[in-house]
């Protein structure tokens, strides 16, 4: 079993697809010679050539729009938006065009476009290079949203995203690129819409995405030392959401914490909490807790950034609140 880092896993999925399928190609800023600002596409220019590994100007609308056009003609382009903060520049094409062509045409067209992007705070990138915006896209019918937290998941899910016939936003987390893991020899596609239980437990379910999956696992360990048994579940695909796995877990544990790095207010956790509250109402022994960034742009100074962004400690505190007793 080879060991792959998260970025290598992403590269592997794209490369395998491009080797098998002429219709797959990639484009984005600085992805060719430089190999991408996050070094994800390193080596791909050499293997596939400049026609299929295309540097673009700084033109997010055109990058995404061209991807849409090529996808509508039956190709499977993967476009890279360097920072998810810049998806804002291409919002019109993503939301008004890619998400809606199939619907507006009454089913005549499909847009099998994959938009890869990354984000994440923790290294003082400043407010415009650190956002987590996945929730916005979950709110647009016609888009699919994936957020992998491990190399194995990234590889299997990116493959499925490329071969999904819809526009998929594939989110990567910057701080996870170096994370290494043993992966199966052969790429095993992971279907979109399936959650993964990382850790089984009985007292509380922690639903986490991205970096917070790992923070939650750390918090779960600490909680165990205090006698609290924590189950950690990663939805992996945010849209469509594997509601059943999440709800079944909460029905077992009777308590829930939802954790993501994105701002808590109006974040993805709000939807998860609503779904769980609705389907597992009579199983809840405590209010659903949410962990996320505080309601501020991401500050620059490390001490402030640290304060705003959530960590394992916040998850642990939330866990404890769900099992608290009088005076607790």
């Amino acid at each position: 079993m080879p060991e792959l880092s998260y970025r290598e896993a992403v590269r592997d999925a794209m490369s395998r697809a491009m080797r098998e399928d002429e219709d797959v190609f990639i484009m984005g800023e600085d992805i060719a010679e430089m190999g991408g600002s996050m070094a994800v596409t390193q080596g791909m220019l050499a293997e596939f050539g400049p026609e299929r590994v295309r540097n673009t100007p700084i033109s997010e609308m055109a990058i995404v729009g061209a991807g849409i056009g090529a996808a509508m003609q039956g190709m499977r382009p993967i476009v890279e938006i360097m920072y998810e903060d810049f998806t804002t520049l291409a919002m019109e094409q993503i939301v008004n065009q890619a998400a809606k062509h199939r619907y507006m045409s009454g089913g005549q067209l499909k847009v099998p476009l994959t938009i890869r992007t990354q984000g994440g705070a923790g290294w003082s990138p400043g407010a415009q290079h650190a956002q987590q915006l996945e929730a916005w896209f979950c709110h647009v019918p016609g888009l699919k949203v994936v957020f992998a937290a491990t190399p194995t998941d990234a590889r299997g899910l990116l493959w499925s995203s490329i071969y999904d016939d819809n526009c998929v936003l594939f989110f990567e987390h910057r701080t996870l690129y170096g994370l290494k893991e043993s992966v199966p020899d052969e790429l095993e596609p992971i279907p979109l819409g399936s959650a993964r239980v990382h850790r089984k437990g009985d007292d509380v379910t922690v639903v986490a995405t991205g970096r917070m999956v790992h923070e939650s696992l750390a918090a779960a360990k600490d909680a165990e030392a205090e006698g609290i048994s924590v189950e950690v579940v990663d939805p992996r695909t945010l849209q469509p959401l594997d509601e059943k796995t999440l709800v079944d877990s909460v029905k077992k544990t009777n308590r829930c914490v939802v954790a993501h790095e994105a701002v808590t207010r109006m974040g993805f956790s709000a939807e998860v909490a609503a779904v769980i509250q609705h389907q597992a109402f009579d199983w809840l022994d405590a209010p659903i807790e949410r962990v996320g960034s505080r309601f501020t742009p991401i500050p620059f100074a490390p001490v402030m950034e640290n304060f705003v962004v959530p960590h394992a400690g916040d998850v642990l505190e939330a866990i404890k609140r769900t099992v608290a007793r009088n005076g607790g």
Partner: protein
Amino acid sequence: MLLIRHFEEKVEERFRAGELPGFLHVAIGQEAVAVGVCQAMEDGDVFASTHRAHAHALARGTHPNELMAELYGKLEGCSHGYGGSMHLYDVERGNLGANAVVGGGLPAITGAALAFKLRGEPRVGVAFFGDGATNIGTFHEALNLAQLWKVPAVFVCENNHYAESTPASQQLPITDLEQRAVAFGMHSTHVDGQDVEAVYRTAQRALEHARSGKGPVFLLAETYRLVGHYVGDPQVYRPKGEQQELRETQDPIVKARARIDISTEEYDALEREVLELVDASVDFAKAGTDPKPEDALKNVYA
């Protein structure tokens, strides 16, 4: 052109009668551009249109029945009731969609042309847009990238000198829109958009240029809108008498008729045929099937 003209007039009439939901933008006065360019396109070519899309759809062969049915929101419509006037699609005939967002369809045409180039297909992507769209970001990014990658695309600017209600003087910093193309280093050409034959010839050349791999072309067609921006537009922004004068001097159908050798009988017969076609399309549409409410849940995802 007659078909388009009478179709659009019928549409106006039906809209005023309260039969058509939503809002409509008719292309009366701009028929020659649509017909000239669309007739010059070949099978396999694709195009994206604007909110003023009936003309292009009809010119490229979408049957008036399907078009009218779409305006009436019926399942038999070319978009099966899901799109409406501003989201007309006919993928079989290369119509990749009218777009309600100004400039929204341009980047996808760059993308389609890119696909043709990567696959080595002799196909061209055509984008229709107005003078107003030359201001928006997608226009600049799409043309910029198209030229950079030398993709087989033709960008047709229908300069009717108004962006909705805003006259050119208030929204364009330049008067010669071919200058837009210069900024991208793109080959450009222009034509009198009210002369259907001229448009046809110019379009042929532009398509050939793109198809041969020489790169994209910016085709500027000077035209006039002989009606308001949308059906019911009081046009308070238009100088008194302008529309009337244009109707008298710049009607492409009148001009075409003057140029070709056609007798009054032949013309009248043609007109009758067209009117029948148009009336039949209304009947077809009215007799069409309303979608079921739950049909709204289909086609969200492939």
